C-alpha cells in the first residue's frame, strides 16, 4: 500500500491522540469519543469494521488496513502491480466493505432481517415496523435475481453497477 510518509505520520499522530489509554491500541470507547462519529446512525457498524472477529482492540496496522479501503482509486494508477494481490481500495473491495456493513453474520448473504436492522439504525424511531418491512421487501425484490429472498455479493454488485463507488467511498488527503 503506497501511502506517502507524511500521510502515515499524520495518521499515526491521529491514532495516538485517539488512544487515551496510551497502550498502542484503540478500543471501541476510544472511537465513540469522537462526537461526529457518535452521532452517525451507522456509527456502531463502522466502529465494528475495525475490529477483527472477537477482538476488542485494534493496533495501528489494523487501523491503517481498514482506512486503506477509503483511499482514492486514482492512486493505483501510479503503482500498477499486476502480479500482486488486488489493492484494498479497488472498486470490488470497496463494495465488499459496504456489503460487510450489511451482512452481520458474515454468511455472504444479506437477509431480510439484516437489512431491517440496518434500516432501523438509519431511521431511528421515525418509521413504523410495517412500513420499514415493506421498504425492505421492495428493496430485496428489486435486487434479488436467483429468488432466494436474500442478496448475495454478486447481486449487490449488480445493483450498484451504475453508482460511482470510487467517488462516494473515498477520502482525499490534502498532502
Amino acid at each position, binding site marked *: 500500500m503506497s501511502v506517502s510518509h507524511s500521510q502515515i505520520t499524520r495518521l499515526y499522530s491521529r491514532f495516538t491522540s485517539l488512544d487515551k489509554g496510551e497502550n498502542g491500541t484503540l478500543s471501541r470507547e476510544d472511537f465513540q*469519543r469522537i*462526537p461526529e462519529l457518535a452521532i452517525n446512525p451507522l456509527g456502531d457498524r463502522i466502529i465494528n469494521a475495525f475490529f477483527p472477529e472477537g477482538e476488542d482492540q485494534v493496533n495501528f496496522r489494523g487501523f491503517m488496513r481498514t482506512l486503506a479501503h477509503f483511499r482514492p482509486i486514482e492512486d493505483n494508477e501510479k503503482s500498477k502491480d499486476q502480479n500482486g494481490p488486488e489493492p484494498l481500495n479497488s472498486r470490488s473491495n470497496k463494495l465488499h466493505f459496504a456489503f460487510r456493513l*450489511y451482512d452481520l453474520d458474515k454468511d455472504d448473504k444479506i437477509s431480510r432481517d439484516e437489512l431491517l436492522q440496518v434500516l432501523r439504525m*438509519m431511521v*431511528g424511531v421515525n418509521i413504523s415496523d410495517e412500513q420499514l418491512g415493506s421498504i425492505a421487501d421492495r428493496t430485496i425484490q428489486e435486487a434479488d435475481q436467483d429468488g432466494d429472498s436474500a442478496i448475495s455479493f454478486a447481486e449487490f454488485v449488480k445493483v450498484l453497477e451504475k453508482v460511482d463507488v470510487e467517488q462516494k467511498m473515498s477520502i*482525499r488527503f490534502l*498532502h
Partner: protein
Amino acid sequence: MERYKQAFHLIKVVILALMAPLTQVPENTSQGNWEALALTGEQSLPYSLFQSHSLRPPTGQEQLSSWGFACSLHSVAALAVPRLTEAFQALGGCVPELELKQWATIRLQKSAKKPQPQLPRTPTANGIIERDETPMEKEITLLHRADFEFSHIFYFCRKGFEAIVEDEVTQRFSSEELLSWNLLTRTNVNFHYISLKLTVVWVIGVIVRYCFLLPLRFTLAAIGIMSMIVGTTAVGQLPNGRVKNYLSEVVHLTCSRILVRALSGTIHYHNKENRPRKGGICVANHTSPIDAIILTNDGCYAMVGQVHGGLMGIIQRATVKACPHVWFERSEIKDRHLVTKRLREHVADKSKLPILIFPEGTCINNTSVMMFKKGSFEIGGTIYPVAIKYDPQFGDAFWNSSKYNIVSYLLRIMTSWAIVCNVWYLPPMEGEDAVQFANRVRSAIARQGGLTELPWDGGLKRAKVKDTFKEEQQKNYSKMLAWT
C-alpha cells in the same frame, strides 16, 4: 549574492529587535507614573486615568522607573531572541534550498504581518483530508429517487470515516499545529530533523529559555503573587469606601502587570472605548487560566469561580477582602438558581466592578469558539464581549488539562518565548432569548478574533455526546425516504 541578501536580512532583524522595546514604552510609563500618582495620593477615578494614559503618544523623555526599565530589557530578550534565531537559521547552509526558501518566505510574511496587529488572523486550514461538505439531502436524493437503496449507506459510511481520520471537535482539545517550527520541542509533532545547524540553534534556545528566562520569570511571578496577597490583605483592613476601592484597584492592577511581565506577555488591546463598565458582564473565549490575568492587566473585574485549596485558595481569600469577587463553594455551583441569583445581585449593584465570565466552561485551543452556555446570558445586564487571540508562534497558551496539571502548564508557559496576544473589546450587546443571544455573541467574538465557530459543546472534552443529536440525524434521513 544570496549571502549578501541574507546578511542584510540579519542586520535588519537585529535593528528591528533592538527597536522593539520602544513600542513597549506606553505600558511601562503608565505603570511608572501610576506609582508616582499613587504616592501623591491623587483621587481621580482610575478608569479615566487609564484612558488618558492610553491616548498619550510615547516620548523619549518619559521617565522610566528602574522597574520599567528592567521589564523592557526583559521584553527585549523575549522578543529579540526568536528574531535572532530565525536570522541564524536563514544563514544556515545545510538546509535544503527549497525548504529554506519556503520556510524563509513564511517567516518574512509573518514578520511583515506583525506591525498590524489590528487585522484578525484568518484560521489556518491545516487539515489532513479534504472534507466533503455536501449535505445529506443533495447526496442521497442525487441517487435517482428517494426510495431506499443500498447505496445510501455510502454517505454515512464516508462521513463516519472522515470523522475518524479528522474531526472538528476533538482537535480543539489539543494544541494547534503550527505551519512552521518555532524552536520549541513541544510543537515538534510533525516536523522532522533538517540539519545540524538547526539543532544547534535549538540547543542554544533551550539554554536561553531554561537558564535565563525561566529563573527571571519565576522570581517575577513570585514577587507578583506575594505582593498581591500582601497588598489585598492590607487594603482589606480598610473600611469600605472610595479610598478602599481606589487602592484595591491600584493593587490589583500593579500585581496583574507584574504577573504579565512574569510571563513575558505582549498584549495589544483594541477598541479600548468598549471596555466593560461597572454593572456589566464581560464574556470572553477561554483558552487558559492566564486569560483572566491578561484581561485584568487592563482593567479591574470581579472574578467568578470556584473556591480552591492551596495557594489559589489563599489568593482567593485575600483578594475577596479587598474587592467583591464572587467565589462559590463546590456545593453551591451545582445549584444553578443560587448561582444566577448571586450574580444577579452583584450586577444589579451598579457600584460593583463588571464580572468576568467564560461561557464556554472549559479551555479550548484558541482556533475556534465552542458553544456558549446560556447561564451567563440569563443574568440580565449588559454584555461586553471580548475576543482574545494568542499568537502561537511565540508560545502555546492552551491548557490541555487532561495532559498537564497546572504546575507543569505554568512551567511550559514560562519556558516559551513569550505570550503574544490580541484583545479586542467589542461593543456592548443586549438580547432577549438566552440561547439565541449566546449564539449571537459567540459569532461576534469568533468573527473579530478570526476563530471558527463550532456549535459543539466544550463539555465534550470529558462527556459523551447526547443521544438527541443522533436522533436528529435519523429523523433527517427518514424524512428523505419515500415509503408507500
